[in-house]
């Protein structure tokens, strides 16, 4: 089986990606895991290059390796996960099984996997549905046949970069996801900034007071719920007060 150079490079990159990913999920040294994650990002960038999409390869390096891996390493160090003893995940095996099943289903529904399902041939259920027709699942032919109409004026040479860029801001194409991404990123940033901001000492005191007040109010509510409601004062008979006062006045 003669392999072309492209296939050789593909196999090498695939080995690197899967090997690095396996290392990431099985090692105890969190820092090495982060570095292996960086290596797998590099290999994915190599895949993009194989697909003739240099823009996405470079974007992968810029965003994933330049920003996100730094964020991951920082968050690992922030929570000091490298010093603590990392207990082995006792559910690792069963979660791997579940993930493998989901992955197979995804390959079936969205990817190149294909199978034929013939309910009538199954042992028990087949007798319930004896005349079910065999169905083919998987290998959905995604529609590449039609060129996407870009509407790009001919002033710019039509490279895939220009088409991609135009599709992001064209009102008929992907401008809505584009702006939604901006909003989403905005919200994420605002949330993180709000949670992680440095509280000034007075703010820290205020927060602690607020939390203490909330706790006190909760305790109060619980206490009130446990005790019976206080007995209302017995209703005085009508003339008792008048009789008492007149009696007092007479004395």
């Amino acid at each position: 089986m003669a392999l072309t150079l492209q296939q050789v490079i593909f196999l090498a990159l695939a080995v690197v990606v899967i090997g690095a990913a396996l290392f990431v999920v099985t090692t105890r040294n969190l820092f090495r895991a982060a570095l292996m994650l960086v290596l797998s990002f590099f290999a994915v960038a190599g895949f993009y290059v194989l697909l003739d999409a240099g823009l996405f390869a470079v974007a992968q390096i810029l965003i994933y390796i330049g920003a996100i891996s730094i964020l991951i390493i920082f968050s690992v160090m922030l929570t000091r996960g490298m010093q603590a003893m990392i207990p082995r995940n006792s559910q690792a095996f069963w979660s791997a099984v579940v993930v493998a099943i989901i992955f197979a289903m995804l390959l079936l529904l969205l990817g190149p996997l294909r199978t034929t399902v013939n309910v009538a041939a199954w042992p028990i259920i087949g007798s319930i549905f004896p005349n079910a027709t065999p169905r083919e699942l998987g290998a959905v032919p995604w529609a590449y046949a039609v060129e996407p109409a870009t509407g790009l004026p001919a002033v710019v040479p039509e490279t895939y970069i220009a088409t991609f860029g135009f599709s992001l801001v064209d009102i008929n194409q992907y401008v809505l996801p584009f702006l939604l991404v901006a909003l989403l990123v905005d919200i994420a940033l605002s949330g993180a900034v709000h949670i992680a901001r440095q509280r000034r000492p007075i703010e820290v005191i205020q927060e602690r007071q607020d939390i203490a007040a909330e706790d006190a109010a909760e305790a109060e509510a619980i206490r009130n719920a446990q005790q019976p409601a206080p007995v209302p004062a017995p209703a005085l008979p009508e003339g008792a007060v008048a009789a008492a006062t007149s009696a007092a006045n007479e004395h």
Partner: protein
Amino acid sequence: MNPINDLLNIIGGFIAGIINSIFSFSPFLADAITMGLAAIILCTFAALSFMGLTYAERKVVARIQDRVGPNQAGPLGLLQPIADGIKMFTKEDTTPAAADRWVYNLAPLVIAVFALTTYAVLPFAPGVVGTNLNIGVFYVLAIGSGSIVAIIMAGWGSNNKYALLGAFRTVAQLVGYEVPMLLNVLPVVMLAGSMGLIDIIDHQTLANGNAGIPFLLFFPLSAVVFLISGIAETARSPFDLLEAESEIVAGFHVEYSGMKFALFFLGEYVNALAVAFVFSTLFLGGFAGPILPPYIWLLLKAGAVFTIFMWLRGTLPRVRIDQMHNLNWKFFVPLSIVHLILVIILLKVFVTSPAQQAATGGILVDAWVQAAIMFVASALTLIAGLGLAARRARISRLAEEDVLARRRAENMATAGAA
């Protein structure tokens, strides 16, 4: 003039011809060997220029500081880089005891490799480029960003508190100054209509009917901010607070010695020279120029930019870390964004080609008029930004002085009463 102008092309063609005839049985192998040879030549060029640059830097900074600089090794100290190289080679390679072996050894290699990889896309002459990526400038920025992880590797692998702390702070600085660099390359890409470096140079020359206007005249603000961000990105003076000897004791590479430290050093200078080359390509027109051969023009322009780097190093004091971050996030980034919006609007209103006017509308002006409008807008934004920052700084300074004066008066009053 033609042999001199196309000297690099002629030599390259000659060597490629020899290789092709030797390996004529397999064109793929001939291609691979040619590319490998080109890579080796680029690395050698980078290494040689590194040696020359360290010498030039020490001499220039010395003259600015009213002293002579290295003059012992060889005539005029010209063999100083070779002496330094020998020293680096023969220095003992001490490794801290509990360091993570792989990470510690790999970090300087990664930094040096990434720094050298940026040279693959720089055009040295009209046909002489390592590989003409149509995403050239994007690639350069991404490689600069990708080398940041190696700094954390170096800091962590040294198993040293101060190295780790220095690594974090260095990464915060480098990561911060990526943003103005990215945002200020955008106007250039918008005007040139492509991210490839050769296309950008073409738009600044008289080729293909373009008016030969360097982009410096279009976007002075972008040029200035890109230059300063480039200096900060390579952690040179005045932004070298993290490797200064009097500060955190050489920062993240405190535990490295000998060849590995030399690789860090090489990475820094090669990065600085790459920034100089990229700036010359983006804003000054690269290898374009009237009389001299193109590669001489590129070297002259990059040399001029690097002289500015050395000049700033010798003249300016070191900035504090909070000053540096304030400058980046509170001045450069908002200014770059506002400038970008302005450039977008103006480039759409004033167009230069009739085809474009027919397609998307706008006012048709001459190329020089468009350049002048852009220049005025950009310069006004820069001056307005500086004025705003100066006014805010003055207000806060006066408020501080106010507080201090009041406190002083109180102290005098209490001292007088006591």
